[in-house]
């Protein structure tokens, strides 16, 4: 006779393995004094252009590097390499998001102690990346004006996994009749209090505010009491 079934209490986080790796990465980044920024958005939001501009403008004053996730191609890494910053591609195959272990593997052979900023561009996807901590200090969710103002209402989860929203392609706002007040209101509806930046990587509008913010955050990381 088979014994009766019974219930065992477990209580284990399903993503514990990822969280453990992410925590180790975060500690390693802190110890090295490198500020890590990750970017999430839908495909075609201008992440790569935005990142290329960021790397190019930061490079004269800071040591910067980038990891870029893509399903199949190395196009983004090639584009980012034009900034002269060290760039590595993480080709995920069919996987729709980056995980902490992929970041850890991609860093092999790099001395993060030499860096000021490390950028991690996630796979273009507004759903899956939200569940995975990558050990970053700042997660930016990018929303381009061409996507429409209601993206935050459609993808509230990703706005909750990010620390700050960045509205890009501002140079196209008029052409697509983008309403900044509506977009801002929608972001605040799903994530009250979320800081929002608006900029154009093409014209440079709003870029200085963003770069200034990164410099402040790096200083805070290195001298937590001085700022």
């Amino acid at each position, binding site marked *: 006779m*088979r*014994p*009766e*079934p*019974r*219930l*065992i*209490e*477990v*209580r*284990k*986080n*399903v*993503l*514990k*393995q990822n969280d453990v790796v992410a925590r180790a990465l975060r500690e390693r980044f802190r110890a090295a004094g490198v500020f890590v920024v990750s970017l999430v958005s839908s495909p075609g939001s201008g992440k790569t252009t935005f990142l290329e501009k960021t790397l190019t403008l930061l490079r004269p004053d800071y040591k910067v590097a980038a990891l870029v996730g893509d399903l199949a191609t190395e196009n983004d890494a090639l584009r980012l390499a034009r900034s002269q910053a060290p760039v590595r591609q993480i080709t995920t195959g069919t*996987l*729709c*998001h980056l995980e902490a272990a992929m970041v850890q593997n991609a860093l092999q052979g790099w001395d993060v102690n030499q860096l000021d900023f490390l950028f991690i561009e996630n796979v273009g996807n507004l*759903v*899956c990346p*939200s*569940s995975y901590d990558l050990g970053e200090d700042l997660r930016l969710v990018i929303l381009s004006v061409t996507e429409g103002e209601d993206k935050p*209402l459609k993808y*509230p*989860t*990703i706005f*909750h*996994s990010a620390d700050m929203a960045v509205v890009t392609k501002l140079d196209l706002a008029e052409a697509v009749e983008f309403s900044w007040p509506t977009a801002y209101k929608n972001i*605040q*509806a*799903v*994530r*009250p*209090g*979320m800081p929002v930046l608006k900029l154009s990587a093409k014209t440079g509008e709003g870029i200085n505010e963003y770069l200034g913010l990164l410099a402040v955050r790096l200083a805070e990381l290195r001298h937590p009491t001085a700022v």
Partner: protein
Amino acid sequence: MHELSIAMSIVELAEEEASSRGVQIIAVHVKLGALSGVVKEALLSCYEMACESTSLQGSRLVIEDVPILIYCDSCRAQRRISSVQAFCCSECGTPSSEILHGKELEVIALEVQECVPNRA
């Protein structure tokens, strides 16, 4: 769609527990928050796939939905939100991003049966 890798993590986690306790798993109970980024229906179908050719083949996945609960500063209490498009207290309308529940993605229990030893 990342539910398959989530399902595989659940199976892996459950298999570890089962082999360390010497039991056969009939069902895995998980808590799934509305803000976990995981879709229940997709997870259920992926679970079946993830169980194939493992000791969990034929087992069930039992999902307990966890609604989003915020802390409302005005009410000084744990409250539901108006909707997922409006993170406001459902009672007084004060906006809040202080999430108390809804991000859960955890295995909470295993329904098991003792393994019957094979007789030689």
